[in-house]
Structures are given as C-alpha cells and as structure tokens.
C-alpha cells in the first residue's frame, strides 16, 4: 500500500456477545477481548507498543472519554492510547487507524479494541433524547433508514421478501458462531415474515439486536507478524488495503440508497489491494447490515453487483455460505450488535476467514476478504481488504 510498511493481523479475540453481560464490568468486557487477542497472537501486554480504541457516542455508557478510565484494563499505561469515534463506522475506522501506526513505522505491534456495553443504557434513548426546538423523532431510529430501503425497492423492483431472506441467512449463520448474541435455532422464513412489523418494510427479525460486546485485534509489522505466526502457528492476515470516506448528512445530489462515499471507499480499497474484479477476487465479505435490506444495497454500492441487481444475488443464494460470494458468515450485525464494536467485528471476522480461524463458519480456502462498516446517515464508511498471501 502506497509504499508504506506492511501490516498484518496476528491476533483476534472477541467476547461472547449478549444483551447484558452480567458477569463482567465494563473494564472486564474490554479485557476479555484484549486478552483473547493477545493469547491468539502468543503475545502479552508488554509486547504492545500502542493501544487504539473506538466506540460509539459516550452517552451510550455515560462515561465521557472512557479510554482514560479504561487505561489499566487494556494495558495502556505508559503507552500511546488513541480513541477514535466516527459513528457506526467507528469499529472499522479504529482498525484502520491502528493499521496506520504500523504503516507509518511508529509501532511494531499495536492492540486495537472496539466495544459497546449497550446494557448501560439504551441506544434508542441515547440516539433520540429530545433536543429543544428540534423535531421529535416519532418514527424512531429505524424510521430514519426505512424510507431509503423503500426507495431501493422502488428503484429496483425487488421482491418484498429479499429482506426476509437476508435475515434468515444471517441468523442461521450465527448458529455456527459461538460468540454471536442471537442464537435462534428455530428461526424460519415464516417466523421472520410473521415477526412484528416495525418500520414497514422492516420487520423486527430484520433488525439488529442491542448487544454488550467487544473485539480486539493485534496488528503487527511484517517481521513482528512473521515471528508471532511462527509462535502461534496461525498465519497472519495481511492487510492489503484500508480506506475511509465521509460525506455530509444532507447534500443536494446525495444518493442515500447508494452513497458516493461508499462507492469511493470501495474503489479506493480495491485499488490498493490490486483487485479489479471484486466479485471474482473477493472470497468472503463481512458487511455492516443492521437492517436486512442493506445487504443487497451494499452489494451494489461496493461494486459486487450492477446497480439494481444486488437483490438478485441475495435471492439466488450467492451470499450464502455455499454461494460464490458468502456474506456475513458470522451472522453479522443482524445477530450481534455492540454498536461501537460492530464495524471491527466485520474487519476481524474477515481476517479470521483468511487465517482459517472461523471454525464452523469458515469458508474453505478463503484468500481475500472484505471488511466493511458504515455509520451516521449512511455517510461514514471504513473498509479493509485482508489476504492470506503477503502482498
């Protein structure tokens, strides 16, 4: 990438995600992920040069700039500690900022952690407390995005059950991921279809849960990565490209169904990774899908499908684990949503795939994977491409 130092993921750890992690404190939650990532990398806190953390708004947990409080738990005392916040894309952005420490040559090994303890409050509250003079969001958070999903359906003439197919697939995939929040073995097409309609066309089973959870990764330079891999026996995931793009929340000419920032970000990250035909060259995708319909929408936005054709891939089963472009084998955001961590979970799960670590939801022989995150009014994007082979 741009002649900078090579970066690889050598350790990945995540917590068990749940509505309320009643057994751990806030520091304990981060520590659980951090310790697992270090164990995976065969490293200790002492080996880490810098700690880069990310989470969504501080109001969610009621702690202002919580990284100061959490410094000991994440082994940051005496080290650089950086806190990223880019709305829903933050988990992805944080991983990218962590990677830039290695690329820039200021660190050999960094620990990066993203988390949210949604049980401290309620996201619905934190996202919608009433600001004086302003419009009350009588439609709730989903009411913000549902109109753009309807517009997608209008533009593409997609059948109205595509969202059901996505939700069913992701929740079934989650059964193969022991860390996922929602494990619904009895889920069926009909149970999703019959679940409570919230913001038509979005049903309850087509929305993400509120989760407590964290994920951590150890990123390393080329030499440090090879040393770590030799010790742990697990190959590194090489970072082939990182990119971030943002656009204003409102702008004449904005396309909220397929935002330009997402297209630009994908084009940039694929260019860095030397990928010219993403559909053919990417083996597995971890995509930020908080509402089911965003899978076909992002398939188009990311360049995996022509405009208006994304839903056809979903409908044909292309994004199933046995399809030729598996999407969200982990169960995705629809099964696990610790908001600030959700982006990094996508990045981490992508890296697990190319390291062959994904267990029951592993795609055999995955060589290149895309991690994707977005946030705000579908205006902040972060992506990375990781590969099994050193660039």
């Amino acid at each position, binding site marked *: 990438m741009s002649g*900078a130092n090579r970066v690889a993921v050598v350790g990945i750890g995540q917590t068990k995600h749940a509505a309320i992690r009643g057994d751990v404190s806030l520091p304990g939650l981060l520590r659980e992920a951090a310790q697992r990532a270090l164990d995976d990398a065969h490293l200790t806190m002492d080996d880490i040069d810098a700690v880069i953390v990310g989470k969504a708004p*501080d*109001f969610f947990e009621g702690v202002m700039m919580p990284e100061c409080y*959490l410094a000991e738990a994440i082994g940051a005392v*005496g080290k650089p500690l950086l806190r*990223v916040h880019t709305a829903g894309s933050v988990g992805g952005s944080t991983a990218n900022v962590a990677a*830039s420490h290695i690329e820039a040559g200021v660190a050999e090994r960094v620990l990066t952690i993203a988390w949210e303890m949604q049980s401290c409050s309620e996201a619905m509250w934190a996202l919608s407390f009433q600001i004086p003079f302003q419009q009350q969001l009588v439609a709730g958070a989903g009411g913000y995005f549902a109109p753009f999903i309807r517009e997608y359906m209008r533009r593409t003439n997609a059948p109205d059950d595509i969202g059901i197919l996505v939700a069913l697939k992701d929740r079934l995939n989650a059964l193969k991921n022991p860390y996922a929040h929602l494990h619904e073995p009895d889920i069926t097409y009909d149970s999703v279809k019959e679940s409570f309609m919230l913001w038509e066309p979005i049903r309850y089973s087509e929305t993400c849960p509120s989760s407590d959870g964290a994920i951590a990764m150890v990123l390393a330079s080329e030499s440090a990565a090879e040393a770590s891999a030799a010790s742990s026996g697990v190959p590194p995931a090489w970072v082939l490209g990182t990119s971030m793009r943002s656009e*204003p*929340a409102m702008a004449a000419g904005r396309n909220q169904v397929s935002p330009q920032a997402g297209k630009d970000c994908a084009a940039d990250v694929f260019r860095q990774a030397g990928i010219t035909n993403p559909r053919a060259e990417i083996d597995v995708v971890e995509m930020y899908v908080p509402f089911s319909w965003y899978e076909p929408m992002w398939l188009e936005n990311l360049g995996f499908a022509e405009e208006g054709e994304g839903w056809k891939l979903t409908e044909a089963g292309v994004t199933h684990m046995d399809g030729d472009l598996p999407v969200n084998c982990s169960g995705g955001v629809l099964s696990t949503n610790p908001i600030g961590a959700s982006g990094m979970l996508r990045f981490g799960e992508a890296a697990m795939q190319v390291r062959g670590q994904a267990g029951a939801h592993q795609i055999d022989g995955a060589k290149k994977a895309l991690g994707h995150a977005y946030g705000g009014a579908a205006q902040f994007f972060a992506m990375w491409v990781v590969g099994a082979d050193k660039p």
Partner: protein
Amino acid sequence: MRDVAIVSVSQSTHQRSLDHLNEVEMIQPVIQGAFEQIDATIRDIDFVCSGSSDYLAGQAFSFVMSLDAVGAWPPMAESHVEMDGAWALYEAWLKIQSGHADTALVFAYSKASPGDLPRVLSRQLDPYYYGPLWPDSVAIAGLQARAMIDAGLTSEAAMAEIAHRNRTVALDNPHAQVKGSASIEELLAQPYLSDPLRVHDCPPISDGGVAVILAAGDKAHQWSKRPAWIRGLDHRVDSHNFGARDLTTSPSISIAADKAGVAHGKVDIAELCTPFTHQETIAVKALGLGDDCVVNPSGGPLAANPMMAAGLIRLGEVANRIMDGTADRGVAHATSGHCLQQNLIAVLEGEG
C-alpha cells in the same frame, strides 16, 4: 520518516460564551481562515481529522454536524477522535507518514458554555466509584495542587506568579479571553475558589476552536516560506487511579518528551496545555525545560481554554512562532483527562 510540517494555523477569538452560534457556525470561519492564510481550498486536502466531545455541549454526534463546515463533497477521507485536536493531528500525521496523504486539515472545537463544565467533567471518572460522587474538576485539580504544596514543589505564591505571567503575556494574544493581571499580592488576597486554588489558578471556561493544515515535503515549502516541521511527536497515558499514583509527577510527559526528542536541542519556547497553575510546574519539570525556555508566550490555557481545542492550539502557537521566525525550535504539549493523566508532546523546528 517523511518531513511533515504545520503550514497554517487559525483559531477563534475565544469567549466565555458564544450563545448565538451553533458549533458549525463557530468552527466554519476558523477552518476558512486556515485555508485563506495559504490561499488553498478543501480540494487541496487529502485527509481531514477533527477532535471534539459530545459531552461538553450535550450534543450527540456533534462531529457529524461539524463536517458541514468542511464541505466534504465530493466525499473525502475523514476521521474523528473523541479527544483533544492534538490527537487528531497525531492521526493525520500517521496518515501522511504512511503515504496515504500528503496534506491534511485538522480541527477541533468546543462549546463548554451550555453546561456546568466542572460538573460535566466528573463524567470522565471511574463510573462505579467516583462518578456517583460528582466531584467537580476544580476540586480534583485541588487535590493535585495540595499534593504539590505539601511536597514543597510549589506554593500558593509561586502559583500566583504563574497566573500573573500567563495573564500578562496574554495581553499580546489577540485570541485570548483573560488578558492582564492584578499584582501577585492582589491575586493572593483573593478568596479561594476551591482551597488551595483561587480563580487565577484555574482556566477560564471558553467557547472556541482551532484549525491547522499539515503538509509533507515540497507541498509544505509551497505553502509556507518557513514551515514548522514536526521533528518529534509522541503521546502517553498514566493510570486513571490518582489515589494510587504520585500526583506530583507526570511519567507520561517524561516518556513522551523522551520519545519526541525534546532534549535533542535547545528549546526556545514551550506551549504547555496546563490548565491549572500548579500543572505548569509539573510539566516544566517532566519536560526538563531550562530557564532559557519561554513558557506559554500565548498565555496558555490560563488565558483561554476551549476544551478539545486547547492542546491543538498549543501546537499552533508554537508553529506560528516558528513560521514567523521568532523561534527556531519549540515544544508543544496537550493533555486529556484529570490531573494531566494523558499527554502529547510535539517538537517543532524551523529550517536548518
């Protein structure tokens, strides 16, 4: 390492309260000012990074709205830290070092006036043990000041002298909020705000912002006759447990100063983000600054303290003095958290 410099600095005229402006309206002219100084536009910028905190004005996703002040259309490579803008500059500097960008806009801002800032800052504390006690930030700083006094490392008179110097030099700072000072004797005759701290020992509450433009190599030369080159940049954090650490020292400043190479040359000026008088003494000692170093020629955060911007302003103040030739080498410091918990050190140099 690539040669990266600060080439433009713009800041608000900081005020106790800018009630008529929202955060976007407040920061937009500051950003525009940074561009006008070098006759550039957002199209010349490869990466944007900002620093702010939702808690100060009670605005969730404050940074989402402030992006409007950038004009990120077409979309841009952009990021945000929930930290002082000095750390946003660090992220931008990494981006340039890694070759993903040659230029960057960094900005930071806050409106602390809408809330009760000393109370708001209690939300930074341990949420199990200390948050529920709602201790205010001035009283917490007082614990550190008392520890300094008890250890014989400062005195109320020495603290008043620091306040007097900072407030006096602020007369020459057009952006300062607190300008000019009563005599040291008069200051010491004032009642305590939070014994052992008097009003002059504490920073003002400020609304304001800052914008800085970074450029690498030739681009820096093109934009500035004498760029302020970033020769060292490092940041470190200490324990949050200030009942378990020595409050009279700052290990994190010492480590960051060492990594940034502060001691590798004469330091002409230092801009320290020490919002309480006794903290200047801690920082000067931890940095190893000599008597020949001019500390806080701008008046520092005792003269204007827009949270989240105050640290980046320190880098800007040093950069300005290098760009205008009044200094050849300077140190800038930024801080985060209570009792100087987290610290960033930058070493800036002129040509040669």
